[in-house]
């Protein structure tokens, strides 16, 4: 099955936050009252009932202009959260979507700590973008119920949904156009990092300016934990149990005298 993805074009986004509200609506999430702390991003961060936000930036250029980033789970090709999840609640579907089963979630928070972006939010159970898993898997193409809610809702045409390979090609072309227009730092975020992100972002400026890590890597600690500590624990526990078992067998017939 081909990997699906969606792409966010920050040069087309106008910050209407239609995607944000339709995400709440489709996923039936509680809404927050608006807060203002000096910047327009609202709610200020992801939280256990907010799967995605549009980040606002107004300090990239001297002449004030707004830049936007659609911020949510990026659906890594090699998801650390799935590796870290102890209960099998998180999974990566064949088409690359990193989704979850809330019935299995035990709210341990390991996914939040393992994620290079710290995305998964845990209230009673995990919450994060699942690329509208139910829509993509079961919707119909003709009336666009098979596209994620945010993509369908986008007014500015800043969101694209489709096969990942096609989107990468399309995104690179767009980056070239932006470079010609004078945005020297323009780049396609997520083409190769972390096994290739399932959410691509066409950015006009360096990823760091948007608060994104430039070269995030799969956390090596999670590998040590899963690939070394797991067998080591078994060796220690099994070794101790085996040792005493063997000792007992060698002592058979000993009724408590000398040893």
């Amino acid at each position, binding site marked *: 099955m081909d990997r699906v993805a969606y792409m966010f074009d920050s040069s087309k986004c106008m910050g209407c936050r239609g995607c944000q509200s339709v995400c709440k609506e489709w996923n039936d999430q509680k809404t927050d009252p608006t807060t203002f702390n000096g910047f327009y991003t609202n709610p200020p961060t992801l939280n256990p009932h907010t799967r995605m936000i549009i980040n606002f930036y107004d300090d990239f250029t001297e002449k004030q202009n707004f830049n936007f980033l659609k911020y949510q789970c990026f659906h890594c090709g090699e998801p650390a959260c799935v590796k870290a999840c*102890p*209960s*099998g609640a998180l999974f990566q579907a064949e088409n690359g979507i990193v989704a979850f089963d809330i019935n*299995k*979630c*035990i*709210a*341990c*928070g*390991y996914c*939040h*700590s*393992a*994620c*290079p972006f*710290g995305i998964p939010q845990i209230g009673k159970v995990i919450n994060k973008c699942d690329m509208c898993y139910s829509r993509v898997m079961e919707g119909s193409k003709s009336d666009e119920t098979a596209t994620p809610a945010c993509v369908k809702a986008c007014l500015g045409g800043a969101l694209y949904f489709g096969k990942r390979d096609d989107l990468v090609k399309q995104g690179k072309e767009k980056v070239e156009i932006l470079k010609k227009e004078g945005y020297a730092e323009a780049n396609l975020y997520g083409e190769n990092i972390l096994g290739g992100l399932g959410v691509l972002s066409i950015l006009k400026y360096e990823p760091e300016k948007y608060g994104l890590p430039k070269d995030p890597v799969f*956390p090596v*600690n*999670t590998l*040590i*934990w899963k690939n070394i*500590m*797991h067998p*080591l*624990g*078994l060796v*220690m*526990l099994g*070794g*101790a*149990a085996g*040792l*005493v078992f063997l*000792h*007992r067998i*060698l*002592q058979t017939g*000993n*009724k*408590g*005298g*000398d*040893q």
Partner: protein
Amino acid sequence: MAKKMIEKHKKATRIFHWLHLITFIIMLWTGLSLFYPAMNVMGLTFGSLRNAAFLHKYLGFFYLLLPLAYAVFNFNLFSKFIKLISTFTPEDKKWMKVFGGYLAPLIKAKDVPPQGKINAGQKLLGWIIIVFSLCLGLTGSMMFFYASFPGYLIQIVIIVHVFCGTFLGSAIIVHFYLGAVNPSSRKELGTMLGNGMIDEEYVVKHNALWYEELKK
């Protein structure tokens, strides 16, 4: 003729040991069910894995507070115990060399050096339990409040936590075996989980130095 009995552990100590033992077993059981995906089914003993995780998180605080309460309310016993496990005598060193004679076919010991109230192995175990439990408590508390710490730190803390947990589990398996199963030392079981009494003959053989002390 009835054997002369000696009280080894006071009632407060025995109650504390019982409570901590039960807590530890539940913590180890639920911990393992969370650690190994293949052992997830162990969580079903508490209804579901989610319940097991909930229990593991909150019982952890009890696991930490219980020894603290014991130390505060029985400060005399506690300080005596700490003093006891802090003094390693030359005899203890010799004892460690032959593992108290417990590995008889492997390491032959003609004479096991005389020991105090608790032997060198028990002293070592005392420190293992204290140090590893504190480690588990610290790392566990950090994992409880994971959102307040950067992700990479929690990842390291998880590694420390699972190592301490499995190591302590292994140590307790040996502790349980020597105290309750091994023929030559299983009488010790009654001193902690029973009425606290042990017969004189056993003390003379296993805790000669302590016996001398008591005679004075």
